[in-house]
C-alpha cells in the first residue's frame, strides 16, 4: 500500500524536476519510520516483560525469554542452519495443506456461488463443520492417516478450507449477471465460462480467502507439529520447552512471526495483481 503511493509520489516529483522533499518525507515516514516505531514498541514491551520475569524470584529461571538472549540465540540458530531446517518442513506442510484446501474449496465455492440449490443444501453442514476447531480433529486425523505428516497436512487443510470456500462463493455471487449473459451470447460453453469469465472475475476473492487461510493455517501449524513429528517450527518450540532452552523458544517464536508476516505479504501482492478494480 505505502510502497505504491510512494512510487507515484516520486514519479510526480521527478516530472517536476528536482526532488519533492515533502513526498520523500512522507515516504520515509510511512514506509520506514512508522513500522520501525511499531517494532520498537513491541520489543520494548517484550523487554519489559523479560525484565519483570527476571526480577520475580518465582519466574527468574525463564529470564532467557527476554529480547537480548533471544536475538543472540536467533543469530546463532540462523547461522548454524537450525532455523532453515525447522522452517522447510513447516512450509511444506503449510503449502500442501493450503493446496488441498484450495483444490477442494475453490470448486465447491464456485458451485455454491452459482447454484442456489447447492448453497441451500450445503449451508447447515458447512456452518456446522466450520465451527469445529481444527484441533478437535486431531484424534481423528491421527487415526485416519498413516503418517504424522499426513495428519498435520489434513489439520491445516481442514482449517484453511473454510475461508477459501466462503470467499470464493461470495466472489461468484458478486459477479455481474450481465457478464454471464454477454458471454453466453458470445457463444461461451461451460468450461470457457469458467476459465475466461468466472475465475478471472474472482481471482482476487480466492486470494483474499487464501490470505485468511494462511493466517489460520499458520496458527494451527504449531500445535499440529507437537504431534509425533520430529521436524518443523512447532516441534522446535516444543523441543525447546522440554529442554528448558527459553532463548531458543523465544527465537523460534520470532521466526514464526516473521515468516507469517512474509506469507501474508505474498497473499496481499497476489490479491493486488489479480484485482481488476480500477485504481482510485
Amino acid at each position, binding site marked *: 500500500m505505502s510502497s505504491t503511493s510512494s512510487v507515484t509520489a516520486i514519479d510526480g516529483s521527478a516530472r517536476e524536476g528536482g526532488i519533492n522533499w515533502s513526498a520523500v518525507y512522507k515516504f520515509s515516514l510511512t514506509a520506514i519510520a512508522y513500522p520501525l516505531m511499531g517494532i520498537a514498541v513491541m520489543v520494548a514491551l517484550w523487554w519489559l516483560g523479560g525484565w519483570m520475569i527476571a526480577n520475580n524470584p518465582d519466574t527468574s529461571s525463564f529470564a532467557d525469554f527476554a529480547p537480548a538472549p533471544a536475538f543472540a540465540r536467533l543469530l546463532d540458530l540462523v547461522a548454524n542452519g537450525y532455523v532453515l531446517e525447522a522452517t522447510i518442513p513447516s512450509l511444506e506442510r503449510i503449502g500442501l495443506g493450503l493446496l488441498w484446501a484450495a483444490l477442494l474449496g475453490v470448486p465447491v465455492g464456485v458451485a455454491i456461488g452459482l447454484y442456489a440449490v447447492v448453497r441451500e443444501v450445503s449451508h447447515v453442514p458447512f456452518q456446522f463443520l466450520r465451527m469445529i476447531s481444527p484441533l478437535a480433529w486431531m484424534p481423528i486425523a491421527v487415526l485416519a492417516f498413516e503418517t504424522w505428516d499426513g495428519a498435520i497436512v489434513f489439520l491445516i487443510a481442514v482449517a484453511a478450507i473454510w475461508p477459501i470456500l466462503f470467499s470464493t462463493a461470495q466472489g461468484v455471487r458478486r459477479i455481474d449477471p450481465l457478464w454471464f*449473459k454477454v458471454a453466453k*451470447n*458470445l*457463444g461461451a460453453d461451460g468450461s*470457457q465460462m469458467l476459465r475466461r*469469465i468466472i475465475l478471472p472475475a474472482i481471482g482476487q476473492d480466492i486470494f483474499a480467502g487464501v490470505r485468511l487461510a494462511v493466517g489460520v493455517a499458520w496458527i494451527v501449524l504449531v500445535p499440529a507439529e507437537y504431534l509425533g513429528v520430529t521436524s518443523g517450527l512447532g516441534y522446535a518450540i516444543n523441543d525447546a520447552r522440554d529442554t528448558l532452552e527459553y532463548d531458543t523458544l523465544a527465537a523460534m517464536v520470532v521466526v514464526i512471526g516473521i515468516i507469517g508476516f512474509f506469507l501474508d505479504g505474498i497473499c496481499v501482492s497476489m490479491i493486488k495483481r489479480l484485482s*481488476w478494480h*480500477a485504481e482510485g
Partner: protein
Amino acid sequence: MSTNISIDYITHTFKGADAPTLKDIELKIQPGEKIALIGRSGCGKSTLLHMLAGLLLPSEGCVRIHGHQVSKPSAKWNMMFQKASLYPWMSVRENAELGLVFAGKKDPAKIDYLMSLVGLTDKADANVQSLSGGQQQRVALARSLATSPDLLLLDEPFSALDAFTRSSLQDEVADIVSREDLTMVIVTHDIDEAVAMADRVLIMSANPGRIVGEMAVDLPFPRNRASVEFSRSREQLMNQFESLVGDADLEHSQAETVDTNKTESETTDAQKAA
C-alpha cells in the same frame, strides 16, 4: 448475410406471475430491416428482445430465424445492453475478440478492422475502465460485431450516454448496420432515437405486452435531425404513440394507482413529453 425473422404468436408468463407479460406477439422482420421497439417501461420490450437472442424461451410460440427455431443463444444474433458490460481484466482488444476466442477462431486482422470501424484503434490496448461511457459502448459494439452476427439486438444501448455521444453513436450504428448488411432491432424509450435509426417503429403496450401499432420511417440515411421531414416523422410517431398507449396511461393516473412502478414510468413519460 442478413436474416429474416418471424415471431410466431409468442406468449410468455414468467414463473410465479399470474398474468402473461407478453401475449400473442406476431411479427415478421425482413432481412436488413432496422426495427425500433418503443413502449412504456415494463411493457415487455427487454423480454421480447431476450427471446430474439435465445437468452429466454417463450412459454408459448417461438422465434424463427431463417426458418429455424431459436432455442439457445448464438453468436449469430448478438445483444447489446444499456451497460457495456466489458470484462475489466481484458484489454479493449481482448474484449472485442472474446466471441472469436470462444469459437476458437482468433482473427487479429478482423479486430484491427473493427477497432478502426468503431474509432478505437489508438485505445486497443487500453484498460476498459479508463474509457468513457461512449467508448465503452463502442467496444461492446465491436465485440458484438466480431462474431459476424446476422442480427444485432440493442436494449437501450445509449440511454446512459450524454446527448451528443448518443446521437453520434446512433448515426454510426445505423451506418454500420447498413454497411455490414445486418438486421437490427433496437429497444428504446427515446422517440428521437427510433426516428433516427429505424425503418420501422413498433409500438408496444403493456399488460399484457403486445404490439399495438407500427410506423414506417421513410427517410434516407444518414438522417438529418434538423430537417423538416425528421421533425414531421417525430411528431407523427409521438401522436401515434399517444393515441395508442397514451390514453390508457391517462386513465391510470386519474384512477390514482398506488403502484409505484407505474407512477415512476408516468413521471418519466411526462418529462419526455414536456
